[in-house]
């Protein structure tokens, strides 16, 4: 299971430089601050709901940091805000999904290299396989990175995706964030066989189970996985062990299924604090840097919040206009009806 993946050839891999470590920290602080702020936004009525990723910053920033947005493509679920931020996606456009502006978010997925936000758990894992096979057919070297969780690993589509990818040697990195909980059901009642990574052996897919709260370990594993897939060796699976420190969503009440003691024990040390201690110990960053990073995160959050608050509803015509590339007479008629009847109100 702890198959050691080959080290990337070229500059893609190797231990992160000091500059990279500082950037990883800045990203994690930005993500942490935006994530916790989004909960506040919901409480303040700025957005109707949010699915926090508190505690998964290292897993998301570390893996997203390995993506080459000029050639790779990422397939998220609904909890990959940290990945989106790391990839440089327009965060007002991304967070608009939580404002109930548009389901997939307002960002352009083709330009962002991030597929639209996906609400079906494991819904996009097969899409990654298809996209990756397209790279093979086009003789390109892009890699598909697809995210799913311990809960989604129960879905049949994950089995089909892993089998298809292995049969076709598709360049896919399956990135599992095992955060311990699928809403209220803990991993031990979700995942048989010890781990999701253990299953990969059944498909002949190399897999690693890593400490998902160690951003350096996450980045290293993801870079190796990308190098493996990019070299034509087929798919790789990474299971990043982390912990969902917050609720499943702003509608959830974890007190009904886990105690605060259990939360504390399960969560372990905060991944952000771990990186901070490491940077301090290695003399890579000091308190002034951390203060500066937090100030930048706060300024960024304010900018995003302002953007979100300024977002109006999309025009109702988009309901009709975006269904097809080539619309139908029935849709045109319904749109005309809607317009006429809504104008009378």
């Amino acid at each position: 299971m702890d198959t050691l993946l080959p080290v990337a050839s070229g500059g893609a891999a190797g231990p992160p430089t000091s500059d990279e470590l500082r950037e990883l920290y800045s990203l994690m602080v930005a993500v942490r601050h935006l994530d916790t702020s989004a909960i506040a936004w919901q409480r303040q009525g700025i957005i109707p709901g949010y699915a926090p990723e508190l505690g998964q910053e290292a897993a998301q920033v570390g893996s997203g940091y390995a993506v080459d947005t000029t050639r790779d493509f990422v397939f998220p679920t609904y909890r990959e805000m940290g990945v989106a931020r790391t990839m440089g996606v327009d965060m007002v456009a991304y967070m608009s999904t939580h404002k109930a502006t548009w389901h997939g978010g307002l960002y352009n997925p083709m330009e962002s290299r991030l597929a639209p936000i996906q609400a079906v758990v494991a819904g996009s894992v097969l899409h990654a396989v298809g996209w990756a096979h397209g790279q093979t057919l086009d003789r390109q070297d892009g890699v598909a990175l697809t995210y799913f969780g311990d809960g989604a690993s129960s879905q049949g589509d994950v089995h089909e995706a892993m089998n298809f990818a292995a049969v076709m040697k598709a360049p896919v990195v399956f990135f599992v964030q095992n955060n311990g909980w699928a809403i209220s059901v803990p991993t031990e009642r979700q995942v048989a066989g010890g781990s999701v990574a253990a299953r990969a052996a059944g498909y002949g897919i190399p897999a690693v189970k890593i400490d998902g709260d160690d951003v350096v370990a996450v980045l290293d594993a993801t870079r190796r996985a990308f190098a493996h897939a990019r070299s034509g060796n087929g798919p790789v699976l990474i299971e990043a062990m982390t912990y969902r420190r917050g609720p499943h969503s702003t509608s959830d009440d974890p007190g009904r299924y886990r105690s605060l003691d259990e939360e504390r024990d399960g969560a372990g040390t905060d991944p952000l604090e771990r990186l901070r201690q490491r940077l301090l110990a290695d003399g890579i960053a000091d308190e002034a840097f951390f203060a500066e990073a937090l100030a930048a995160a706060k300024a960024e959050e304010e900018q995003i919040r302002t953007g979100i608050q300024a977002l109006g509803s999309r025009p109702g015509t988009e309901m009709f206009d975006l269904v097809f590339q080539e619309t139908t007479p029935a849709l045109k008629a319904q749109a005309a009806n809607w317009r006429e009847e809504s104008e009378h109100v």
Partner: protein
Amino acid sequence: MSNSILEGRDAAGESTADDTVTNTAADSPASTTVMSMQQALNRALDEVLADNPKAVIFGEDCGRLGGVFRITDGLQAKHGAQRVFDTPLAESGILGMSVGLAMAGFHPIPEVQFDGFAYPAINQIVCQIARMNYRSRGTMPMPITLRVPSFGGIRAPEHHGESLEALFAHVPGLKVVSPSNPHEAYHLLKYAATRPDPVIFMEPKSRYWQKGEVDTARHDAGGGSPTGAKVMREGRHLTLVAWGAMVSRCLQVAELAAEDGIDIEVLDLRWLKPIDAEALAASVRKTRRAVVVHEAPLTSGLGAEVAQLITQSCFDTLKAPVERVTGFDVPYPSGDLEDEYIPNIDRILFGIQRVLEYKRG
């Protein structure tokens, strides 16, 4: 549009009982050849692959075998295993993979081997393929042409004779089409496989081996719309609305009724979404009576939609309520009972009789 079609189809009334070929041999242009629907579909796919380097065909047994119905026969040998390939046996995988290929700029033409095996892929079809253009605000079109050998009539095992058109037609974001003869199969598949939207292409498997003339140069003589319905036989007294394999059966019924002096118009709906409401209106405004025929179960079947569209446009002039002759609200039966289930000539004639004998009040 119907009038222009009719002008070009004077020979329609000369159709033989068992097929829907409308051109006599003497009239046939050089571009016309006789072929089975299987051959017509195969030729259409061959040409789509030649015309569009981004078109790819895949599914269970589509490659070396050429499909269990041989629709993709020879295509892998001709176009290569990168363009025409076998997948593992998992329909959700096939359709989910199609989404990713479409995102990567391909035009996937997947096959689900039999109608009933579209069910395991429903999440990918309904929640993903149908919605990705919408979810992505038009930046990720899904030009996916899903071929589904459909409907009954071949004494096959369970789940091999289903009619899913109402289910697909109900899903926003999907288009649905079904050809009734080799000529329609050739042209509708070529049209569907060049669209930027997802199209469910329902092939009437009981008609795969029926031959007919295919004019590869032109689809509708008279310039009808490739997205519209088509009058297959002109008549004055009653309109039979059908699609897929039921069209040829309705043409047979029309011949029999003609012996009793009843002049029946047969409208091949072709597109089950979007439905050509104008063609329905044009036909029934003239005949003032309509019977819709389909293999699918009665309740919430597409016949109800057709009946409503006709009622909406022709309520004032209808001589009788629109009648439906359909399968029953039962699981599709075994081969022994198949002929009891699928609308047969007698049941369609009874439906016609009920409409003709309808008395108000």
